[in-house]
């Protein structure tokens, strides 16, 4: 890490830990436009998001990772709307790594305050968090924040460019700017003659934009709010080499690594004799890095092709040291259960007086439950990979990453090269889900590049290495109790949730010098911040002390808190004798946006009608990443096996920029969630992950995929995200449907431990 980044991150951690606002330090200084140094002949740039060539090519720079969410389309649409062009007429390029592309929305949304809390203190905390993103220049794709972060920035990029082009045309033609219009990459004069953006760009780029610019009103949108044909479809149906996996460079070598399967454990010794006999194997190197990176020991095999590298890695004889955590799943879960029972934690929600409410509670009014979920791997479709070249004092990296500037600073320090001499060339990502926000694989590639005499080297993980060396979704345990009131509404709800801290794990390996202090709101994200009202309502998050690497996994804390909270709410609805929909109407009565998605999903699923014989439905709600979601899952029992027939989802993320893309993202999140709860779990034995590939860690297949219907509402005042909010509610909605069908209450994932699914 660079010194500045380290210092600023300390401030950041302070802000994360305590919601401290910090002053004008660096906040007002805009970052320089990174495009300025690298313009081709005839190109002009107006801001970090846009360049125009003298041939009239208009190019939008996409600073976020494209990993399925159609971001190259939606971000281009924001610019196109203001330029008055069509998306199809604009070229896109992935932006370089630059602090100018910081994402502040992600951290704002990650503030430890519920989305619906808009008090001054809550807003100040949000602003402080967003400023951290800005000061650190965090160019990250995550937290379902890309469109939200870009919404103003990229419209402004288009709008200021349009107005400066008009100004240049006005200067040239002598016609007042107010009489000019922009259309199809032309400035149109009142008499109908045109001047192309390309011929004006050079002059325009020298001008300051007019100060009275105005973004187009929503009511005047031509493109935004409508479904646009995605601009990455052709590349993605013709098998073009667009992924990190496909990078091909002259003289390139191929490599794989094999790190200690006991995660973070050392390597005692290795013998490469047999490996070096394999045709194509060039070199075997020790990949053990500095202690503080926490990746443990291992080897890398450099070869002339991937297959030789894979075979070589198998042939190296290695003696591994022990894991820095208990060796098997039972012992690991014991640590988490103990934390849940007796650990000290934070109470990010603490309404009323829970202890008092339980002190005199009659036994029959109390409901108690314990829930648990396992570790999960991301298994992106494209196994981890990265290509690196270290030559002539510069480091070039080709990869798909969700964290360009963090990767840049990490690989620069790995290779001993200045950040200014380190270049990140972004590719498409064959899935991200949070896994590609990590720095381990880029770091390994840079480390390998030190052994290839300036030749590029492409590191590709086997699927086995990928599944067994993830930064996992943490296992978690929740212990809940409620006291029912006389009216059937719970009076008190008390939830204790324990898991290894994701933020702590990430800080430890990404910013090793910084202690992870303060609460980690990801532990209870999806429980502490739900829009339910109970007189006494407490949600405690407890960090379980475990050194198993954990990370961001699609919807993060919501991926298990959605299940915990909504599973338990369903239990309380049953106890109250109320229909689950009615129960939620009563307990979320103060939040019309929540009620509207509930009513909508009830309508879509025909909730109040009698079930079709042999079928049952379950309902769940979740508010995450600013998006209000209600889902109903319908299952059918087929010879004692469960078939998921339908999923209905109503989601409100406020302003919707591209309905089709958003719906598809929600659908994708639903399938990701169902995949996890049906059968996925990561278990440990002898310190090693037992699942290795899709034969032992599978996901939903087309034959198991239900019909999915998504309706979008736009009642919410603030914009929400699309990539993650589909995931959380799908899981409890399925569990609740299974309860309705079988009377069996599922409190553990995966559900396949207790029920069978049609396969």
């Amino acid at each position: 890490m660079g010194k500045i980044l380290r210092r600023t991150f300390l401030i950041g951690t302070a802000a994360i830990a305590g919601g401290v606002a910090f002053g004008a330090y660096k906040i007002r200084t805009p970052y320089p436009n990174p495009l300025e140094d690298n313009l081709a002949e005839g190109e002009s740039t107006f801001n970090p998001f846009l360049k125009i060539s003298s041939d009239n090519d208009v190019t939008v720079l996409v600073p976020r990772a494209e990993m399925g969410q159609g971001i190259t389309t939606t971000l281009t649409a924001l610019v196109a709307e203001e330029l008055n062009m069509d998306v199809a007429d604009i070229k896109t390029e992935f932006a370089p790594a630059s602090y100018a592309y910081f994402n502040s929305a992600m951290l704002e949304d990650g503030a430890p305050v519920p989305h619906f809390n808009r008090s001054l203190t809550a807003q100040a905390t949000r602003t402080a968090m967003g400023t951290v993103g800005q000061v650190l220049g965090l160019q990250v794709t995550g937290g379902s924040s890309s469109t939200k972060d870009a919404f103003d920035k990229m419209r402004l990029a288009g709008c200021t460019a349009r107005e400066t082009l008009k100004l240049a045309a006005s200067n040239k033609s002598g016609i007042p700017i107010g009489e000019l219009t922009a259309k199809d990459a032309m400035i149109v004069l009142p008499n109908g003659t045109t001047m192309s953006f390309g011929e004006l760009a050079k002059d325009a780029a020298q001008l300051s934009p007019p100060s009275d610019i105005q973004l187009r009103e929503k009511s005047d949108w031509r493109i935004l709010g409508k479904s646009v044909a995605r601009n990455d479809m052709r590349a993605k149906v013709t098998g073009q080499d667009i992924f990190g996996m496909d990078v091909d460079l002259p003289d390139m070598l191929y490599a794989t690594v094999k790190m200690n399967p006991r995660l973070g454990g050392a390597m005692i010794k290795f013998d490469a004799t047999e490996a070096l006999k394999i045709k194509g194997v060039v070199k075997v190197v020790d990949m053990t890095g500095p202690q503080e990176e926490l990746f443990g020991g291992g080897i890398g095999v450099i070869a002339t092709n991937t297959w030789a590298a894979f075979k070589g890695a198998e042939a190296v004889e290695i003696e591994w040291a022990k894991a820095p955590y208990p060796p098997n799943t039972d012992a690991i879960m014991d640590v988490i259960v103990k934390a849940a029972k007796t650990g000290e934690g934070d109470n990010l929600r603490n309404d009323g007086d829970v202890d008092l409410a339980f002190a005199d509670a009659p036994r029959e009014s109390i409901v108690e439950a314990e829930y648990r979920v396992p570790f999960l791997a991301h298994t992106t479709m494209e196994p981890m990979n990265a290509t690196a070249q270290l030559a002539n004092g510069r480091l070039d990296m080709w990869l798909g990453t969700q964290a360009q500037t963090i990767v840049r600073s990490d690989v620069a320090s790995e290779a001993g090269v200045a950040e200014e001499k380190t270049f990140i060339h972004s590719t498409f990502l064959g899935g991200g889900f949070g896994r590609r926000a990590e720095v381990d694989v880029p770091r390994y590639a840079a480390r390998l590049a030190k052994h290839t005499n300036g030749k590029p080297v492409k590191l590709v993980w086997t699927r086995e290495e990928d599944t067994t060396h993830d930064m996992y979704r943490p296992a978690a345990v929740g212990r809940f109790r409620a006291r029912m009131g006389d009216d059937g509404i719970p009076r008190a709800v008390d939830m204790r949730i324990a898991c290894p801290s994701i933020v702590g794990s990430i800080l430890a390996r990404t910013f090793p010098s910084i202690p992870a202090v303060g609460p980690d709101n990801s532990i209870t994200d999806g429980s502490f911040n739900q829009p339910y009202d109970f007189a006494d309502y407490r949600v405690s998050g407890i960090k379980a002390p475990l050194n198993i690497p954990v990370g961001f996994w699609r919807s993060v804390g919501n991926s298990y808190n959605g299940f915990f909270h909504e599973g338990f709410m369903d239990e309380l609805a049953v106890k109250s004798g109320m229909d689950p929909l009615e129960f939620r109407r009563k307990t979320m009565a103060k939040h019309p946006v929540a009620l509207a998605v509930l009513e909508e999903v009830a309508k879509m699923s025909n909730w109040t009608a009698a079930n079709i014989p042999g079928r049952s439905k379950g309902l769940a709600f979740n508010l995450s990443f600013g998006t209000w979601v209600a889902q109903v899952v319908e299952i059918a029992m087929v010879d004692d096996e469960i078939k998921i027939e339908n999923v209905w989802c109503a989601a409100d993320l406020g302003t919707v920029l591209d309905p089709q893309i958003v719906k598809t993202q929600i659908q994708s999140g639903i399938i990701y969630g169902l995949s996890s709860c049906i059968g996925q779990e990561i278990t440990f034995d002898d310190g090693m992950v037992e699942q290795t590939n899709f034969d032992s860690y599978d996901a939903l297949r087309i034959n198991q995929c239900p019909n999915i219907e998504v309706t979008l509402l736009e009642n919410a005042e603030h914009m929400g995200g699309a990539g993650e909010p589909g995931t959380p509610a799908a899981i409890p909605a399925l569990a609740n449907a299974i309860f309705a069908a079988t009377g069996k209450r599922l409190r553990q994932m995966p559900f396949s431990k207790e029920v069978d699914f049609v396969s």
Partner: protein
Amino acid sequence: MNLSVNGQTIDIDADPQMPLLWALRDLAGIKGPKFGCGIAMCGACTVLIDGEPQRSCTLPVGSVEGQVTTIDGLANGEALHPVQAAWVAEQVPQCGYCQSGQIMSAVALLRDNPNPTDTDIDGAMADNLCRCGSYPQIRAAIKRAAKSQSET
């Protein structure tokens, strides 16, 4: 050794045990077929050999006889294959990584069964994993391609 790929004969120097996938990708520079699992569990590497879908990650290159077709050779110049065109029309790909395998499997399905039912589709496509969950669009695109093929 010689391989016939997408109508061209290519000459590569490969260990006959090397899986066809890596021979194509690393030696011949044909990057359409993707690596997903290496054990015939995900379908990302699917190619056609004499029209039959095969998992190229487990197929030793030395055993390959016949015409290999990969996604790279499916379009006719600028004109997309009807299955690819249906994929664009239904906006199927999300990240896109599984899609070359999905499309090759769909091409094989439609050749054998020009009017597949949902059950036929499920049966033929269940070995192709999509971690992004593009299955509903895949179903729709296969039906669309079936329709467009029957109309021409």
